[in-house]
């Protein structure tokens, strides 16, 4: 049995490849055999800089590697996005509850992502892509600040081309080259023609998730079938540090993915 403190020990592993997604976002491919579920996260350490939670963004069924897509916002993410192939990172996980993959089988699915929020949803979409027969119709709604900030563009092109999925993208601020939709991501619900029986998976800024969930409820979706992925400060990932509490919940192990029926009340209380 390992003592509590030993659970904080990272495994040191090699970064096999890196891929720049946008100006401030990089995907690391890390050597690891640890299985995970879409929506789960790992704690990644940049040696001498610090540790932070990062979701899995890769295919859940490709053995030997993990993918993590990281946006540079502060010290630790700065160091992680600067890592070169061959370097080591510390890794522990996977932690948390992921997306309800079993429930998705046979259902229509609507996926709504804002900004880096597409990263934790990517494993779901990759799973759908590999096994289109098991699921209903899928709609992917993506919002980004500007066209330059759209993540995983080659994936989006591929998914768009696939018959199993409808892909809609919008930006807050367009540039000259942008011919697509401009405005908040909820604007895409109309063109996507959502089936009220769908399961919805949401990840992005809290405010975006609140608006999207409200609109989905109005379209007739069941609050138990709308899932959101929450973000709170996390330092341990395993319920020791207390930072991620949201009312009665530890986001690290009772989340980050929770149904809207649970999240709604918690997200309504200011400063909870």
């Amino acid at each position: 049995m390992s003592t509590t403190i030993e659970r904080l020990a990272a495994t040191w592993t090699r970064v096999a490849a890196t891929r720049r997604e946008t100006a401030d976002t990089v995907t690391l491919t890390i050597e690891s055999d640890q299985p995970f579920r879409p929506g789960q996260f790992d704690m990644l350490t940049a040696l001498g800089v610090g540790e932070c939670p990062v979701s899995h963004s890769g295919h859940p069924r490709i053995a030997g590697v993990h993918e993590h897509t990281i946006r540079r916002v502060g010290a630790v993410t700065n160091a992680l996005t600067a890592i070169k192939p061959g370097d080591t990172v510390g890794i522990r996980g996977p932690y948390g509850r992921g997306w309800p993959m079993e429930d998705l089988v046979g259902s229509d699915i609507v996926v709504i992502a804002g900004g880096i929020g597409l990263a934790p949803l990517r494993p779901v979409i990759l799973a759908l892509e590999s096994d289109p027969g098991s699921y209903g119709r899928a709609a992917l709604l993506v919002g980004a600040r500007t066209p330059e900030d759209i993540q995983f563009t080659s994936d989006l092109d591929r998914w768009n081309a696939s018959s199993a999925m409808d892909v809609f993208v919008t930006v807050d601020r367009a540039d000259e080259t942008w011919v697509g939709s401009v405005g908040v991501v909820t604007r895409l619900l109309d063109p996507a023609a959502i089936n009220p029986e769908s399961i919805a998976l949401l990840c992005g800024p809290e405010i975006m998730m609140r608006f999207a969930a409200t609109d989905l409820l109005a379209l007739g979706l069941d609050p138990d079938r709308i899932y959101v992925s929450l973000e709170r400060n996390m330092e341990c990932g395993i319920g020791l540090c207390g930072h991620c509490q949201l009312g009665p919940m530890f986001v690290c192990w009772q989340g980050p993915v929770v149904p809207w029926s649970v999240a709604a009340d918690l997200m309504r209380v200011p400063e909870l």
Partner: protein
Amino acid sequence: MTRRAVSRSSRGLRDRRPTLAVFKFASCDGCQLSILDAEDQLLAVTEAIDIINFPEASSRILPGPYDIGLVEGSVTTSHDLERLLEVREQCGLLVTIGACAMSGGIQALRNARDVDELAAMVYPNPEYFDVLEESTPASRHVRVDVEIPGCPVNRRGLVDVLGALLAGRRPALPTHSVCIECKIRGTTCVMVAKGQPCLGPVTRAGCGALCPSYARGCYGCFGPADVVNVASLSAQFDTEGKATIKAGLQSFNVGAPAFEEAARHV
């Protein structure tokens, strides 16, 4: 000890040894002396960082630009102000060290008073001076990247900030109360157990709860914590205790807005 060998990652430290300069304004020199007081780490510091302008320690003074500039002391003359603007131009990262540079220091006591009158109290010929009305922190005039609190700064804290800047780490500069350090250290609360006035609950951590560990109340030398509820704190004391709380607020960080404001509520 359990030991495991793994391959080393890129450690964040820059390839080139970064350069550092130390600049003095109105101060007691104690904060920059903290660098030399880090005896056991001094040679490690000078190996990791090329200190190329540190008049207190070396007569080798090279011109800027510098990767890191440490600013000690407050701005009290128009010449200081000009110099500070130049310093900002020359430094990649500008780090202030200590209460003088962060909030104006004890000499900011003059901000509420008439400088000529003060000068006349001390010097027979006050007309020889050319000083500004107020003693002000660097951040009042230029952008500051990191502010290290304390009168004086904590020696280990200072070395840690340098290490953090080198590694690209977030420096550990807590803004919470001294009380947390007091309890972590396991010292007796002098306020609860002895009824002594203590500014710990409104003062920012960083000293390691030094004063309470020496059986005296904190007098606020690290400046305001993120929450400064002095009205509630001082309500615990009689007239004399309140006077002690107020004196603490009006000492080494008298120029910190939160303490300035708080002193009005004692």
